[in-house]
C-alpha cells in the first residue's frame, strides 16, 4: 500500500515533492507538517437552491358560519341550493335554523337525514341557549346583530332514493322596520344580488 504524500500548511513549502521542510525543521518538529493549506479548502458553492422538505398538511374547516366567498366556493364544488331567511328583527329566523338542526339530532326530519355540515360549531352556538346544558330557565336564541355581514350555514342532506343534497342557509338578515325595508336595497339587496348572480338557485323564505 503506497504511503500518502505528506502535506504542509505553509504554502511555500514543497514537502509533498521533495520531502524537505522549507524552514529547515526536522519533519517531526515542524509545526506545519500535516496541516491543510488554505488553498486546499474548496470554496462552498451556495448557488444551489436550498432543499425544501414538503410538508403534507390538510386544512380543516373552522366549523363557524361561512363568509360569502367560502360559501360560494363550497357551492361550486357540487350542485347545491341557497335559501335566504329574510324577515323583521325578532321574527324567529335564527330560532328556525336552530330548531332544524336540533331536530336532526333526533333523526330524519320528514324523510330527510342529516348528512354533514361544515358549520357545526355555528349550529351549536345558535342552539346552545335553547338547551338545558346552558342552564337557562327558558330556551332562548341569541339575536343576530342588525346590519351584521352576511354569513352562511351549511348542511348536506340525504333523502331516501336520491343523491345527497347540499343546502346553504344565509344567516338571517334582520330589518329594522318598514322604512328600513325600503333602504335595505343598499346593504341587503346588494348581497342578495351577488348570490343570485353567482348561484344557480336562490330560494327565499320570508318569516
Amino acid at each position, binding site marked *: 500500500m503506497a504511503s500518502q504524500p505528506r502535506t504542509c500548511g505553509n504554502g511555500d513549502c514543497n514537502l509533498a515533492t521533495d520531502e524537505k521542510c522549507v524552514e529547515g525543521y526536522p519533519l517531526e518538529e515542524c509545526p506545519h507538517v500535516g496541516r491543510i493549506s488554505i488553498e486546499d479548502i474548496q470554496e462552498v458553492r451556495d448557488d444551489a437552491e436550498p432543499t425544501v422538505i414538503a410538508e403534507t398538511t390538510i386544512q380543516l374547516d373552522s366549523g363557524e358560519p361561512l363568509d360569502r366567498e367560502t360559501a360560494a366556493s363550497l357551492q361550486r364544488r357540487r350542485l347545491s341550493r341557497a335559501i335566504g331567511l329574510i324577515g323583521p328583527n325578532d321574527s324567529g329566523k335564527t330560532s328556525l335554523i336552530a330548531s332544524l338542526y336540533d331536530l336532526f339530532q333526533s333523526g330524519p326530519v*320528514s324523510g330527510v337525514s342529516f348528512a354533514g355540515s361544515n358549520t357545526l360549531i355555528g349550529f351549536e352556538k345558535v342552539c346552545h341557549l335553547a338547551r338545558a346544558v346552558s342552564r337557562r330557565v*327558558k330556551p332562548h336564541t341569541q339575536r343576530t346583530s342588525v346590519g351584521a355581514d352576511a354569513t352562511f350555514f351549511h348542511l348536506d342532506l340525504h333523502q331516501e332514493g336520491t343523491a345527497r343534497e347540499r343546502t346553504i342557509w344565509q344567516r338571517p338578515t334582520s330589518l329594522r322596520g318598514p322604512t328600513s325595508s325600503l333602504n335595505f336595497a343598499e346593504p341587503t339587496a346588494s348581497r342578495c344580488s351577488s348570490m343570485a348572480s353567482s348561484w344557480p338557485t336562490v330560494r*327565499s323564505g320570508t318569516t
Partner: protein
Amino acid sequence: MKAMTPQIVDALVEAKSVCEGCRLAVVLTKKDVVIASPHVERVTREFEALVAQIKDAHSGYLGEIRAFTVAASPQDCEDVARGEGIGDLLRFWIEVPPSPAVEEFRSRAAMPRMIDRFGHDGEGDQ
C-alpha cells in the same frame, strides 16, 4: 309586520335580488305565541290575507308561493311541539323545482336577405 312583509317581498323583486322563478315560503313563526293569544282567528285571517296579497302581486315573477306555520322554539305552551311545521318547510325547500319550459330557438340573424328566409320553418312555402 303585516304591512312590512309584503314590502320586503316588493323590494326584493323590484331590486331583482331574487331570480325570476324563485320559490317563496311565507312563514308564520311562533305558532305557540299565536295559540296562546286571544286573537288566533284574527292572526290566521290576516296571515292568509297577507299571503294572498303577495301572491296577487308577485305570482308572475316568483315561482311557487306557499304559506307555512312553524313553532321553532315554543315556550310555555304544551299544545305545540318543538319544531312543529319545520319538516314541511324543509320538504318545500329541498323540493326539486319544475324545469322551465324551453322553446326551440331559431335564429334568423345569419340570413339578412328576406329571400333567404323563405323555405325555412315553413314560412313562405306555397
